[in-house]
């Protein structure tokens, strides 16, 4: 008998996950590890993990990892990739990290068309610090710092940062996906594969936004959390391809 779902070689064995049950981070970690193996990129991989729930990602990833200050992932990724273009550079970031404190770094690394991949976990809250409102929180969403629900009058509107950067000429690939269902997980893997391929071919910046459950801070069961993504979150953040300029850039470069 052959084992179909083998343990990814770039995922450490015998470690106990610190993620909450039903958290989306673990799913995306596994996808990243599987793809690095399938695409034979693990040996040159360099991943920047954020301040956020994924701060300990190096406990799981069995390739080279560095930790960033809150929001600075794409600046560190820029420095590393420019210094050593042979590295395969990934910046793994949460929504607070990428679209609040790190907005400037996000916008400008995207605008420069840095040849890096950004994996963006949108769980509509600040997970690590206990469920405060994020720029991505939905209107009416109750969080620790919007207890009566996010109100546009005082809190502004959900920020669509991936849609913004997708309009940049330097951003070659941008897609929004969700890990709330097996079909969504499959799409997520495909999107991240395309993003990785973009960097392999030297075609520029790629970003995959993953709608990801945070049952703990949403105060829902894991099942209910997935339902909330499928019924509420997707209304604000519609999954789908936001830009794919790979063909165009291949021609430009040929």
């Amino acid at each position, binding site marked *: 008998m052959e084992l179909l779902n083998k343990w990814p070689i*770039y995922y450490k064995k015998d470690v106990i996950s610190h993620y909450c049950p039903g958290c989306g981070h673990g799913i995306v970690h596994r996808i990243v590890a599987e793809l690095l193996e399938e695409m034979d990129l*693990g*040996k*040159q*991989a*360099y991943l*920047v993990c954020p301040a956020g729930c994924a*701060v*300990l990602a*190096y406990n799981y*990833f*069995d*390739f*080279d*990892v*560095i*930790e*960033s*200050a809150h929001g*600075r992932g794409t*600046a*560190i*990724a*820029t*420095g*590393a*990739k*420019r*210094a*050593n273009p*042979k*590295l*395969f550079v990934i910046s793994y970031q949460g929504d607070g990290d990428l679209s609040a404190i790190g907005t*400037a*770094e996000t*916008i*400008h690394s995207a605008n420069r068309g840095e040849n890096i991949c950004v994996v963006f976990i949108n769980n509509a809250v600040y997970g690590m610090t206990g469920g405060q409102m994020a720029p991505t929180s939905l209107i009416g969403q109750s969080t620790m710092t919007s207890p009566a629900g996010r109100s546009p009058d005082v809190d502004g509107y959900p920020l669509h940062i991936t849609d913004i950067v997708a309009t940049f000429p330097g951003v070659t690939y941008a897609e929004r996906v969700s890990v709330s269902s097996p079909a969504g997980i499959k799409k997520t893997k495909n999107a991240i594969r395309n993003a990785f391929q973009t960097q392999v071919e030297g075609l520029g910046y790629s970003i995959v936004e993953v709608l990801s459950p945070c049952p703990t801070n949403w105060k829902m069961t894991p099942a209910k959390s997935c339902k909330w993504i499928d019924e509420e979150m997707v209304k604000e953040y519609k999954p789908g391809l936001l830009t794919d300029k790979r063909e165009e850039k291949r021609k430009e470069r040929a």
Partner: protein
Amino acid sequence: MNKVFMSGNHCIAEAAIRAGCRCYFGYPITPQNELGEYMAANMRKVGGVFLQSESETAAINMVIGAASTGMRVMTSSSSPGVSLKQEGLSFLAGFEFPAVIVNMMRGGPGLGNIAPAQGDYFQSTRGGGHGDYRTPVLAPASVQELADLTVKAFALADAYRTPILLLGDGMMGQMKEPVVFPEPITDLPEKPWALKGRGDGPSRYQASLILDGLEMERHNWKLVRKYKEMAEKETLCELYMMDDADFAVVAYGTTARIAKGAIKRARKDGLKVGLVRPITLFPFPDKILQKVAYQVKNFLVFEMSTGQMLEDVKLALGGKQVEIAFHGRPGGVIPTPIEFSRVIHRYYRRILK
């Protein structure tokens, strides 16, 4: 190489390239723009990376990224921009990544002005960012020394795995002087800790988070041991006309140059005055000052600030039977040698008659 006539800012950039620096990240700010501009014109010629970042915060984090791969890397700025770099300096110190950070100080606080000042001494020598660390600081006082200390800064950064601050000011950056550059360094030290992709070996990570208190404490003491070793081996200080002196001026960088002019004048009038010029501000040359205190009982600290290095002098000479006076011109005012020689005369007469 022959002597060339060059401004301080250009000189640092050229010396850095010769020292094997192959990555520069920076954001424009007066009075150090010429440094980044020189890098823009010359870094790519040697196959290096020049990148104008979106902010000083981004620049210092790009420095972290490049340093993590083992590259020799530099960023430069002036006071307000260096404030923004403090987050990254704290991380560099924690990671123990080598990097060279240049601060050409200007008047402050706030936007202040663009004139030379020495108001960032505390920020430079006390750590500047959050957490229990210090940044070694080199304070050149001539264009030749800018070249020499830039090269030295990279060597120290690699040897001790620490960020090194090169502290000058607007005047140091703008003034032109003859300089002889060292030959380019091609033999760079191995960095086995650098992240280069795991290849066929085990994976590695560079973490800044140390959740265990005891482990964090060990890390803090490890940094302290490193600073102590640097204090023993790397402390630099110039003694100028101190052989027969009975009165010592203590000044660094631009004020030390002004003090030398003033001391020459005072010497003509028969005053036996000399200069103690700290070249490393951290580690501070306290042992040297203590030795001087056997000979000299009166010190005059001279800074373009309201009195910052003054505290280190007082700490170094604590418990000694000495008098420590202070003369400061903060805010971007450049005192003249004539002015300062009058100050020396005033104190000298009052104290030694």
